[in-house]
């Protein structure tokens, strides 16, 4: 099927296109040079902005912890329902939507690729079952490997190659895309109710440190030639003063960088950017982290932006989540996963009248505005931890409009208002920056070559928004920005119009991307695995890997490892 998006204002940062009026031609699901006139359906995008489909590098949308979050919050669903229509399934929202609703809502905002970043390997099958039931978007998932006994043992024994072989096996077995590390060492300690306090703590009985884990997996990442860097949720998340842990973590892999390319990604950095020593004197460490990121090339981050709403926190950071229960007294779910990792879930309401929450709100934006290079910082809310993903348009408006930020600043806690750096920041994102923060930058970090841009050969994932920066000064009209990004004029997925005026018109199924690492030493890994399997897990070796045909639409990404 041929399609022409005519006369739109195109923002395609990966191809350096900054607001050019041009036509985009689509054929067979891909962007092409041109299509024969008269053969194509034409979308008149005059007066509208055209961008690649949105890409979300970190959003908890599928898997065991997400589903337990859904179970935990019937009160969250009851006021936010989706009716069944002729083309869509029914469902519920708000902070942990059901799977069909998740797909539809992302698509309505013009998003076409979403990564679910915390998959316990033992329960990978569950993640993929849910992703299969999440329509409209392409997906990938990150297995949690930072506390896996195999990793801990190999790193303890200095066996980097064996570690890499096993990680390669694990990526294929779980159909995962990248290495995820959460509070390295923490979930293993939490197995007995303890935690780590710094990257130098010893983790019994393995006698390695979080620093060893991060460095070790960073090396493994390079050995395996994975397109994305290690994806790290730092130690001491959510603790006053933790910005120094974040900088320690960034520092500890600096000498592993070969060229100017990043070797580490710190996710939802806002939660890891606090100064102070307790909740009374907690403050923003965003400027310090921004300074570090500005002066180095080996790291990228995503925001983890807070929006004042009633949401649900869920991470693999078991001890942190228990701490959150202690702070709030809210219902608390804990789910430790044998041999591998853990999870915790606690509902949480961010209040603008709370000093700490208001500071957190400010910190996320400060990070995005103080880091000079927009290719280093991406828009996320660590959905649903800091806010539901449906709030992205609001965040885009804050980034683009000082006025919009000021409007919120006037309503937040007084002490936070005084301490926030936002009033001293004039910078406003333009559409080109927004395109980087919500698509191009994310995709560059992920290494998904055919996504996030509109060059010839790319997947025809396109978002068209009702915004005309030539007619309107967007920075003075944040409401227009927000509305436009909330309901895409058109969302095109693989060359098919799937959303029109914010409504799903054609349900489609996306692909699941996973990493197929070609190594030479597969066989050795397999036999050692089989021997240890019975000792380490309560499931059989043969039942652990996910067969490729389990995925509704499997999309292999190949890479050749250095072993």
């Amino acid at each position: 099927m041929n399609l022409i998006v005519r006369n739109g204002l195109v923002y395609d940062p990966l191809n350096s296109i900054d607001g050019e009026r041009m036509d985009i031609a689509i054929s067979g699901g891909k962007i092409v040079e041109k299509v024969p006139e008269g053969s194509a359906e034409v979308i008149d995008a005059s007066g509208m902005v055209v961008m690649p489909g949105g890409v979300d590098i970190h959003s908890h949308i599928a898997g065991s912890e997400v589903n337990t979050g859904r179970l935990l919050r019937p009160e969250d669903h009851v006021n936010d329902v989706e009716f069944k229509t002729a083309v869509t399934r029914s469902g519920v929202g708000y902070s942990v939507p059901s799977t069909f609703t998740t797909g539809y809502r992302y698509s309505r905002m013009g998003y076409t690729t979403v990564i679910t970043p915390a998959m316990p390997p033992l329960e990978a099958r569950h993640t993929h079952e849910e992703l299969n039931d999440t329509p409209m978007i392409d997906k990938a998932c990150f297995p949690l490997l930072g506390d896996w006994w195999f990793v801990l043992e190999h790193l303890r024994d200095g066996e980097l190659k064996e570690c890499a072989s096993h990680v390669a096996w694990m990526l294929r077995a779980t159909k995962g895309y990248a290495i995820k590390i959460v509070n390295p060492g923490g979930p293993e300690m939490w197995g007995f109710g303890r935690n780590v306090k710094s990257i130098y703590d010893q983790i019994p009985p393995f006698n390695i440190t979080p620093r060893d884990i991060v460095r070790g997996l960073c090396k493994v990442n390079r050995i395996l030639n994975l397109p994305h860097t290690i994806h790290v949720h730092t130690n001491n998340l959510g603790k006053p003063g933790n910005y120094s842990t974040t900088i320690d973590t960034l520092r500890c892999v600096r000498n592993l960088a070969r060229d100017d390319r990043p070797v580490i990604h710190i996710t939802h950095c806002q939660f890891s950017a606090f100064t102070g020593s307790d909740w009374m004197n907690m403050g923003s460490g965003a400027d310090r982290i921004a300074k570090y990121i500005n002066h180095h090339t080996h790291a990228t981050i995503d925001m983890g932006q807070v929006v004042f709403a009633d949401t649900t926190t869920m991470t693999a950071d078991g001890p942190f989540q228990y701490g959150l229960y202690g702070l709030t007294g809210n219902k608390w779910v804990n789910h430790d996963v044998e041999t591998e990792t853990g999870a915790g879930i606690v509902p949480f309401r961010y209040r603008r009248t709370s000093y700490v929450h208001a500071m957190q709100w400010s910190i996320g934006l400060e990070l995005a505005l103080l880091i000079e290079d927009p290719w280093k910082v991406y828009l996320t809310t660590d959905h649903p931890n800091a806010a539901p993903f449906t709030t992205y348009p609001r965040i885009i408006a804050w980034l683009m409009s000082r006025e919009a930020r000021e409007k919120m600043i006037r309503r937040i806690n007084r002490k936070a208002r005084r301490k926030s750096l936002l009033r001293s920041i004039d910078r406003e994102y333009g559409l080109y920056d927004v395109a980087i923060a919500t698509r191009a930058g994310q995709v560059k970090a992920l290494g998904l070559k055919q996504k996030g841009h509109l060059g010839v050969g790319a997947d025809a994932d396109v978002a068209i928004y009702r915004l005309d920066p030539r007619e309107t000064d967007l920075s003075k009209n944040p409401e227009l920005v927000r509305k436009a990004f909330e309901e895409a004029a058109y969302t095109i997925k693989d060359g098919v119009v799937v959303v029109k005026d914010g409504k799903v018109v054609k349900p489609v199924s996306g692909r699941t991307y996973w990493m197929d690492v070609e190594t030479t030493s597969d066989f050795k890994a397999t036999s050692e695995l089989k021997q240890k399997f019975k000792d380490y897990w309560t499931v059989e070796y043969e039942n652990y890997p996910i067969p490729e045909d389990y995925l509704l639409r499997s999309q292999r990404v190949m890479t050749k490892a250095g072993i």
Partner: protein
Amino acid sequence: MKHLTTIGPVTCPVCGCLCDDLELIIEDNTVIQVKNACAVGEAKFLDCQQNRPRTPLIRKNGELVEASWDEAIQRSAEMLLSARYPLLYGWSSTSCEAVRKGIELAEEVGGVIDNTSTVCHGPSILSIQDVGISSCTLGQIRHRADLVVYWGCDPWSAHPRHIERYTAFTDGRYRESSWRRYAKRYYARQLLKRVQRVSNITSKTVPSTETTTDHLPSFPKVRDRLMVVVDVRRTRTADAADYFLQVKPNSDYELLQALRMLIRQEVLDVDEVSGIPVEQLEELADAMIECELGIIFFGVGLTMSSGKNRNVDAAISLVRDLNKWTKFLIMPMRGHFNVTGANVVSTWQTGYPFAVDFSKGYPVYNPGETSAVDILSRGESDASLVIASDPVSNFPREAVKNLVGNPLIVIDPLETPTSLMADVVLPSTFVGIETEGTAYRMDHVPLPLKKVLEPPDGVVSDEDVLHRILDHVRGLRKEAP
């Protein structure tokens, strides 16, 4: 020589243990030997081909007569479509793939979809939604637990391999199996019984009427893989345990709250709670605080005795409070091999784990209002589809009356009391034996179920049956919207 095949590992489709290490020896499409399974699992594989209905049945003039698949599917679709408030119930002994189809069907006909949690661990789920839960996968217990409490459940009978695979009688990274300790105690008890029998014969005195509960057995000094049972009667599991507390029926709530008080270092003003002396409770509380990792497994002893979900509230809260001192966890002993799967699939697709009502066009969840037994007891539904369960055998009489008094479709591999009362009977395959699929263990670990035998001729999988009914429903809708 006959042709024998060995297949393994096979996942057992019986209980929530979902043991996946079975080995089957198959000859000519029949299982002739089962390795590693418990007696219940073995029986399912050995007997699965007996008494299998092979053709659909439709009730005509009061009698169930054989019909073609087309006719039976057509009749089923008509029944569901013409109902105002159909109920689709069961789901716990079939695959996740079938459950997904079932939800799609329920949504299409605007009915209610509910699974057997509604009469089993539904209260546990309600409780989790109120207070959360501190839990884990079973391997965590195997590797780390030095205190295992079975409360209101009897794994020795209902989950036979639970203790040997996941808890006390298995080795973990940090713990050793306590099987030998149990074996020694068992033989010692046998010896004592023998000695007593001999002494009763040789001495001419009247045997003592003193029961063993009159003098309190002392709390065990051993703290490794300590197994404690709390129950209203001395079960087989209680016999295997290191310590048994006999709680008065319908008073688990008070007992749990008393333990919470002790954990919080409060003083109990009474001598006993729920029939158990406070001294024993204090020892149990000490053991709970002093362990490195403890777990409470619980069953319908808590969920279906007086208090129901409040009992579970108290148990979960006790475990949560214990986390101030040490690592403590709790897990419901799910019965059917895929009731967890039914909850899990229902939750991700609709947002809710059971009792989901689609009659408004979107999912509504309100147990008590939208749950099967309540709907049937109030006579609100006017047609039902029952699959992978047997409510006629298990539901209250009033509910059963309304179930069978209205059009009833049954999908099942076997003839059951429910299928005998049905208006349409659709014979299906055994998931995990004749059809592959996915199931979830009691700790939410998903496992693949294999197909190891060919099904009897003409018999079709649950998923296929549901798919056909759904197709027909959609077809009928198009003709007469």
